[in-house]
């Protein structure tokens, strides 16, 4: 039981009201000692509206997409989904629907035509394309990993390591 010794040491070190730190909840020793220490009440922060998300929420229209697929305009269909990808939405269902549209389109494009497809996608949309490639990797049962790896290779050749960094850091996820 380290509680009493810990309490004594902390009181000696600080001797005053300790500012509450929410990260202490993760440390079992500190959490145990907390009722014995003089700690300020945690601020209950009101959830502020996130400025970066939930503005300009777009999503691809399923009918429009289906029309392009039926016309066999696969690259155009993919570009349409990427253009209207719900990156700013908070609703996971919206994202799931768009992801299935994007990935099923990508699977329809022949391996030999992937390189040309990537080059015809406008540069600002290529980051979103890379995000969908990684989304596809998350579901190896639904989407062929070997096809995705080819997509990954071709997109990487066009956009470089920067696009992977943006997949990992961008809060506007797919």
């Amino acid at each position: 039981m380290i509680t009493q010794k810990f309490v004594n040491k902390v009181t000696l070190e600080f001797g005053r009201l300790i500012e509450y730190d929410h990260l202490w909840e993760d440390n079992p020793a500190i959490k145990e000692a907390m009722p014995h220490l003089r700690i300020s009440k945690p601020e209950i922060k009101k959830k502020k509206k996130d400025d970066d998300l939930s503005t300009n929420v777009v999503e691809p229209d399923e009918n429009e997409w289906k029309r392009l697929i039926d016309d066999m305009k696969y690259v155009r269909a993919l570009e349409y989904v990427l253009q209207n990808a719900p990156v700013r939405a908070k609703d996971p269902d919206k994202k799931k629907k768009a992801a299935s549209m994007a990935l099923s389109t990508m699977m329809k494009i022949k391996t030999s035509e992937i390189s040309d497809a990537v080059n015809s996608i406008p540069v600002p949309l290529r980051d979103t394309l890379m995000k969908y490639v990684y989304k596809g990797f998350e579901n190896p049962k639904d989407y062929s990993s070997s096809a995705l790896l080819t997509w990954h290779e071709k997109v990487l050749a066009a956009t470089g390591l920067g696009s992977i960094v943006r997949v990992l850091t961008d809060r506007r996820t797919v």
Partner: protein
Amino acid sequence: MTEVHSFGNLPVIAHAWNKDRTQIAVSLGKNDVRIYQKQAGKWRLIHTLSEHLSRILAIDWAPTTNRIVSASADYNAYVWSFENNVWKQQMVELQRTSRAVCCAKWSPNENKFAIGSSDKNVGICYYETEQRFWAAEMIKKKPKSTVTCIAWHPNNQLIVAGSCDYRVRIYSAYIKAVDGQPQVSSWGTITNTGDLLHEFQSESGWIHDVCFSPLGENLAWVSHNSIIFAVSAKNSSRTTMEITNYLPFRCIIFVSESTLIVAGHEFSPLIYNYDERKDSIDFVEKLDQQETSTGKQAVNRLFDQPSMQTQTPEPISTHQSMITQMLPYQTDHTNIVKISSTDLFGQVVIWNLSGRKIKK
């Protein structure tokens, strides 16, 4: 041409030069500032400034007043002055800063310095002559996350702070007690301390470094999503982005009014040109070009054995790890002619920019 200096195997987290570049103050990730002097072609440790209780995250050396400010993870910053052959520390009162101080920079006139901390504080510190300590004016409109980098405008009254909340903010750093009249600047009118003049976004990436151009008309920053941003005071509502294919950059520096150099996880510094009228940031060249050609030859010979031939020989760059900081080393009027860069393998490299395609 390019000088390479080694300070052992420890990472050089921060560095600062004295006025005539004969001495360098470095932080090797430890709790002390180490000052080395160039003696007979070698760097010798002449002073160790140990007062901090945790690793030192930033150092800045004011050339004219010969003072050093050091910021550390122990929630403190100290100002050091050189008296009787010894560096003595002066108290800095950072109100209510309860997290690491990440960055510290002297103002151009060296009468103030700005600090940024992990607990969202930005402070402008000036010397209280009556009570003989450095007092801090903390900015009220705080960023929402860690303040990673700070830079001063040449007019000594504006600072820009980059933060992990994906924003870059220009604040007024006017202190009535120290500055005379508030100056007029193309970024807006300066009235009170801590006024927020501008706020720019970085498209969802932590800001790693921010920098004003030598005359203060342009501002640029780099963030963790491998994008370089720039904006001009002439048209502050339009931010120019350069979405790069490289790994993220950690530091940025303007060498002239329109040319900037970035460096970071891509082991060579890169030169870019910001054209405000065309709204573009164009890649010029890698600083490390000349080194790679000689490196390639040596590596090719090494890999002549049949078993090794399947490996593609990589050109050996001068920096072999992430570049942590870049500073001006030598200036010519307002343009920078030489820069120094440090990396995680203890190297300090001085690059000569003469002969490069640098636009005014």
